[in-house]
């Protein structure tokens, strides 16, 4: 077990992403220099924002949590050979289902109500993704195009539900959920200076562990990976490709839906009417890619993503750099991870040197 764990975090698998992160930050620095900003001051104020006081540190953890969930969602589908660009929509319906249950159900005891709301969010996300999986499996329709359409459908459908059934009078948002449905952790929030801490973060970490065990320690996970790796071979070995496609999309959607549920039940306690897509699901694609589609890699990459995003607000205060620079940094990091050839090319001189030393 330990040796396996070690292998995941072994030098070779970690080296490329690490170098990519450094190179991404350097690209960001160069662009800041061209724009006439001070990159050291900017990165300094980024990290000062995140680690400077307990409130902001807590809020950074709040920022990271949904990214873990959508990252896991995208990666889970990737492992089964599917591109779930629809995590965005699944996240949205997860939010709405949790909001509806949180507001409309009453009389349930404290933990039960929250659990029901969480499950409703997860199921909604799963079913939403399941539609895509089903249409892909049964009708052979491209999953990317269906997911894109369902993202927009989810956005407007959720707005419809909130506006017509859950609206707080005179506001562009739903009523507050019942206290019994909240998953906020009061004492922890107090400890973090009223940052919005909630149980969703713990569940997100458990979800990553579940992902790992399911995918690599269970027969079902083996089948999913086999289908993802080579559908024809899997079919020949007697596995049902169609069943596995639907299953993979469903579980993937559950992750994203849970992410949405946590956001409502733990952070906002209501759902606003969207004016545009929230983007957490799209960011999940980046998180999954930087985390190399591995659940533990995703915990790291979601943290990185969350730190950079939350800290970017501090950059514009501290160094007057437009926070959009962080999107460029993240884009560059993914670029260097994707085009590993470039990273290996950068690393080559170091490898050669090491080899020479060995020879001597």
């Amino acid at each position, binding site marked *: 077990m330990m040796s396996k764990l070690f292998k995941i975090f072994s030098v070779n698998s970690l080296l490329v992403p690490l170098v990519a992160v450094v190179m991404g930050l350097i690209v960001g620095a160069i662009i800041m220099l061209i724009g006439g900003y001070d990159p050291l001051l900017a990165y300094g104020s980024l990290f000062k924002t995140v680690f400077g006081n307990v409130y902001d540190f807590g809020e950074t953890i709040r920022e990271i949590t949904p990214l873990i969930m959508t990252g896991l969602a995208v990666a889970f589908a990737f492992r089964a050979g599917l591109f779930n660009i629809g995590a965005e929509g699944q996240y949205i319906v997860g939010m709405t289902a949790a909001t509806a249950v949180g507001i409309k159900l009453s009389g349930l005891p404290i933990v039960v109500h929250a659990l029901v709301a969480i499950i409703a969010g997860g199921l909604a996300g799963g079913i939403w993704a399941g539609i895509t999986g089903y249409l892909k499996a049964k*009708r052979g*329709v491209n999953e990317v195009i269906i997911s*894109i359409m369902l993202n927009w*459908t989810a956005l407007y459908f959720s707005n419809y539900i909130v*506006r017509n059934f859950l609206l707080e009078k005179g506001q562009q948002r739903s009523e507050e959920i019942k206290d019994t449905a909240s998953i906020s952790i009061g004492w922890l929030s107090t400890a973090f200076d009223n940052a919005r801490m909630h149980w969703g973060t713990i569940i997100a970490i458990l979800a990553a562990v579940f992902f790992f065990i399911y995918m690599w320690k269970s027969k079902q996970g083996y089948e999913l990976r086999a289908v993802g790796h080579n559908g024809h071979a899997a079919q020949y070995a007697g596995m049902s490709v169609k069943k596995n496609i639907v299953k993979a999309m469903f579980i993937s959607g559950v992750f994203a839906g849970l992410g949405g549920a946590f956001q409502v039940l733990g952070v906002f306690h209501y759902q606003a009417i969207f004016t545009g897509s929230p983007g957490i699901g799209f960011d999940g694609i980046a998180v999954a890619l930087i985390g190399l589609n591995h659940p533990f890699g995703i915990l790291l990459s979601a943290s990185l993503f969350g730190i950079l995003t939350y800290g970017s607000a501090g950059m514009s205060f501290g160094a007057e750099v*437009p926070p959009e620079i962080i999107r*460029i940094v993240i884009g560059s990091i*993914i670029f260097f991870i994707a085009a590993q050839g470039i990273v290996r090319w950068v690393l080559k001189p170091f490898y050669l040197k090491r080899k020479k030393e060995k020879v001597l």
Partner: protein
Amino acid sequence: MDWMTTIGQLINTTLVFSTALIFAALGGIFSERSGVINIGIEGFMTFGAFAAGVASFYAEDAGMGAASPYIGILAALVMGGIASLIHAVASITFKADQVISGVVINFLAAGSTLYMVKLLFEGAGETTLLKEGLAKVPIPLLSDIPIIGEGLFNNYITTYLAIILVLVVFYVLYKTSFGLRLRAVGEHPSAADTVGVKVLRMRYIGVIVSGVLAALGGATVTLTTTNTFSHNTISGQGFIAIAAMIFGKWNPLGAFGAAVFFGFSQAIGNYFQLFAWSKEIPQEFIYMLPYVLTVIVLVAAVGRSSAPASLGEPYDPGKR
């Protein structure tokens, strides 16, 4: 308002909404027919919309008047070409995963365009409103025909260009040796290589043309619809264009039909509001219409899509 004008205007609005989608979908076809997935269309459109907004503003500022939107278009073409090199280098030369590389484009576009807008316009979130975007150009005589005249022949020059380009792209892809090579490289690159087609070069051309066309699509949004560039000038049109391309089975005529279909379902939402009974329908359902219709049509009619055979596979001559 009489029904003839209404129908004429409906056709007209449909074409205005479709124009950007047509350009972008044609762009997607060039890239994917050469075997390179291009999910970065959204990003290329963003780059184009940005370049058009900024360059036209500076051209106006320099007193170029009615010529300034064309400077904007030119800038968009150049910007799209440069940005597409990122996708080309990563996915063709360095054999990166093409989907990932496309995602990178979308990230870089969203980040860098707003970064530059804030840099150039002193912290503002959008470019200064253009005094003049493109103007509608009625075609003499033809524009006097009832219904069709208003609908088809009283439109932006970019719309005429988009329709002409559909035919041009169709001709290039299916009637020229260049088109044959491009398609061959996307279907069976090693066979194409054997008969002397430069696979990597063809793919570079495919991706660059793709970026240029998608950027042109983005520019039309800025110059005909919004007259400014901000974070939501391009919000999803690129993905809709990808849908149109897949829907149209990677064929320019099919993609054109799909793009017009999307434009129509978007335009008709505006026209529903003219009728009294439309109050009964929640507005969200009208917004949802194009997307739900697409899903239904895809499931009912199209079924299995027929992508180029080698789509998504980097070409490695050493591999058998």
